[in-house]
């Protein structure tokens, strides 16, 4: 293809911008972003934390689940500006710094609880949030299904994820 002159391309939209500051995976971050930027896009594209996935952008599939002040939340239904001042944790914070898997992650691996891995970070964050809550875990078939009932998976048929939740409880001494 013949070399052509570089096109004149705008470098920004006309969106109003806003300063946001939050703690992400223990680190303070500040950025100036569009007022309508989703938290999921903020994490993925502003911070490069692409482990948080986006599966539906209408809050149904759970792929984008992160912890917002310790509670599982949908980053696709949250604006970055709404997260201002909050403590956010993403999948990138779950394994140890040397890469050693968290017991929940280890359990997924042992139980073949993932195939394509696209829903997995949201699943793991949701399960981690529940495991961090005090009190007895309901590890019955029904209880685990209820725990997973906000996350879609199209590959596994869920049964190995259910097994992984039980295995994680064992590994964490919560069984």
């Amino acid at each position, binding site marked *: 293809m013949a070399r052509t002159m570089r096109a004149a*391309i705008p470098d920004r*939209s006309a969106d109003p911008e806003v300063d946001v500051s939050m703690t992400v995976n223990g680190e303070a971050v500040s950025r100036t972003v569009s007022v309508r930027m989703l938290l999921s896009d903020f994490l993925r594209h502003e911070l490069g934390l692409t482990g948080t996935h986006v599966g539906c952008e209408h809050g149904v599939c759970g792929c984008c689940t992160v912890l917002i002040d310790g509670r599982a939340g949908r980053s696709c239904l949250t604006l970055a500006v709404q997260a201002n001042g909050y403590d956010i944790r993403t999948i990138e914070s779950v394994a140890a710094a040397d890469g050693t898997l968290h017991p929940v992650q280890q359990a997924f691996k042992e139980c073949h609880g993932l195939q394509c891995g696209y829903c997995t970070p949201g699943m793991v964050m949701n399960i981690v949030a529940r495991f961090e809550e005090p009190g007895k875990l309901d590890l019955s078939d029904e209880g685990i299904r209820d725990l997973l009932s906000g996350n879609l998976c199209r590959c596994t048929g869920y049964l190995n994820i259910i097994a992984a939740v039980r295995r994680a409880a064992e590994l964490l001494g919560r069984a």
Partner: protein
Amino acid sequence: MSTRQFGARVERNIDPKLLRGEGAFVDDIPLPDALHVAFLRSPHARARIVAIDTSAAKRYPGVAAIYTSDDIGALDVEMPLLIPHPSMKNPKTQRPLARGDVHYVGQTVAMVVAVDRYTAEDAAALIEVEYAPLPLEMDLTKALTDDAPLVHADVPNNLAAHFVQTSGNPDDAFARAEHVTRITVQVDRSTAAPMECRAVAARWDAVSGELTVWDGTQTPISVRGGLASVFELDEDKVRVIAPDVGGGFGQKVLLFYPDELLVPMAAMRLGRPVKYIEDRRENFLGSSQERTQIHTIELAALRTGEVIGLRDFFLHDTGAFIPYGIAVAQVASTSIAGPYRIPNILVEFKAVYTPTVQVTPYRGCGRPQACFAIERAMDQLAEELGLDRFEIRRRNLIEESQFPYAREGLLFADGLKVTLDSGRYGKALAMAAAELGAENFAAEQAKARAEGRYLGLGLACYVEGTGLGPYEGGHVKIHPITGKVYVNTGLSTQGQGHDTVFAQIVADQLGVSPQDVIVVEGDTKAFEWGVATFASRAAVVSGNAIHKTAIIVRNKVIEAAANMLDVDPDQIELRDSAAWVKGSNRFAPLAAIATASNPLRYAFNKAAQAATQFAPASKHDGPPLADGQAPGLEATDYYSPSRSTWAYGVHGAIIEVDPGLCTVKIRKYVCIHDCGNMINPMIVEGQVLGGIAQGIGGALYEHLDYQADGNLANASLMDFLVPYATEIPNVSILHLETPTPLNPLGVKGVGEAGCIAVGAVVASGVEDALRPFGALKFHQVPLSPNMISRALEAVGC
């Protein structure tokens, strides 16, 4: 010897990366300065485009470019017909951007490129399109009538294809029949709904003249060929990478989707990386769907229940275009006799254009429809002849001694004669009966009925032609520095665990651990010969190619090690990443053997010293590499199957129906499954379970709700009901392993197996559960509460 890896439940190599959030899906690839795409899509199913005004959109801040069919030059042509077939007259494929008419809601009309997706969507909303709506017909049967509105003005009766295949002498069989049963069944439209929607990103390097495209496709090599052809680039200047892909299930095997051409075009024209990340709504509107077929099937039987003839006529909805040819209908038509002998078959279909997004394979690819038709017909035949549902199947299953069992006259999707190669069908049926507790079920059912609970037993058998050609390849190389083994093949993976099962195959040949085998696929620069991931073929075709290649490398290792250790080759054994002299402590690590097999000039590390020109072992009596010898320990080989290999299974369930609420609850689900030798039973079970979950979706929930005006009323995951964990019952899977004689590993495919039988099982079970209310018929899936309610009302309940 090391423990055999083939057959072991090896945990997956890829998992730690995916679990830590370090996967690299298309939208995760960092592309600085990337521009983002949004499409304007047709809101009409049939309309003529009168005018398009992009002026306001072009002025919108942040917009880099807007393209309509007038602006895309040579790309403004109909996209390829991938699988030509003589049964199609005037086959239609779509243009990247609509010109003249639009043919379905969601068809791409204009493309916006802007600084971010938010801005691109704003601008798309500012494009003014004037449409003149046209009449349309959504009903498949009515669409064939003479006065039906046309999807394409030059295709009469909306007839896309018409095909008849015959095996044996069906007329004679029906003349001899002592009983004929006839049934009409329907499977409705569904969609794969992979968790990652489709995605394409492209970067054009004007300095090197190279186009790099990241595409969540199941077929990167074909995409590369197509792009090279469309853009008139040397194939070597086009690199297509399918990185981590979040599920495909067939939807991502189609090429081209409009974005797959337009995104690279925009990247080349604008000199900036360009990304298109399909959103969920677009996945519902613009990415391929499948399933709608209406079968009228007749079985010619003897009073014993033996089926001697089958006639099936079906309508297949192909959507507004037919880019993948008749593949789905052809697979359905050639799978129609299931695992039964039925020696005389007539199967005829008409593929019909409807003003909806195109139909191309979705996991199962016509098999669930064929299974639903034959299995529902077998149930009806059993009832009419007063036979047990297990018994009628037992009397018709192909027996072990009858393999290979050919269906003369039926050509499968690979163009080769349908020949079921091996199996223990009767044993699988017996195992299902035992696992379901079929013998005692009548008593259990009666007891439940006495308590006001309605239990039913559902049953279905299926077959799956797998491992289609034409071929795949494998490249295996032992790295001289690390001693790790690198493996390449031309497939891409969407979660099936290729990297682990292929590693297991290689590990056994080379005496290494599967964790030391690194599989790279989905990149045309890594391996550029091959076809695609589809039709449950990866383990069969690439698996055997890699197996053959690993044996070549094994022999090279043994020969080189025998030289190094100065023993006969038959004294060498490979284990623990080294070659050992049997019964001794003498060994050479694979890394050292690989290094020594590569004559060196420079000693870049300690190991390399042994291969340099003045090292003791170096040759001084001729060229360091003999004529015809290649450096290193590597090989490439290919496997081309002689024909497809047929897996099979039997599914059954105990189902409870609440006649008040009209709900269906699966109390127990049993799957007996045989895919030949299993490379990794854990992964096989994962494939089967995932398939069953999709099958349950298709049996009970997943129904694309097209309105009479062609609009899809449930284009979201809120309204299109993909099962959550709460909808999936516990499943017991029992394996049979009957190796196929057709390939060295004895393996058959498994990818689609799980989903095939579920619809038939559920309908069968619901009928059985509701028998106290009369002979209610359930001949359509998904089987909704409304259908149960209507059936009960019809008998006055």
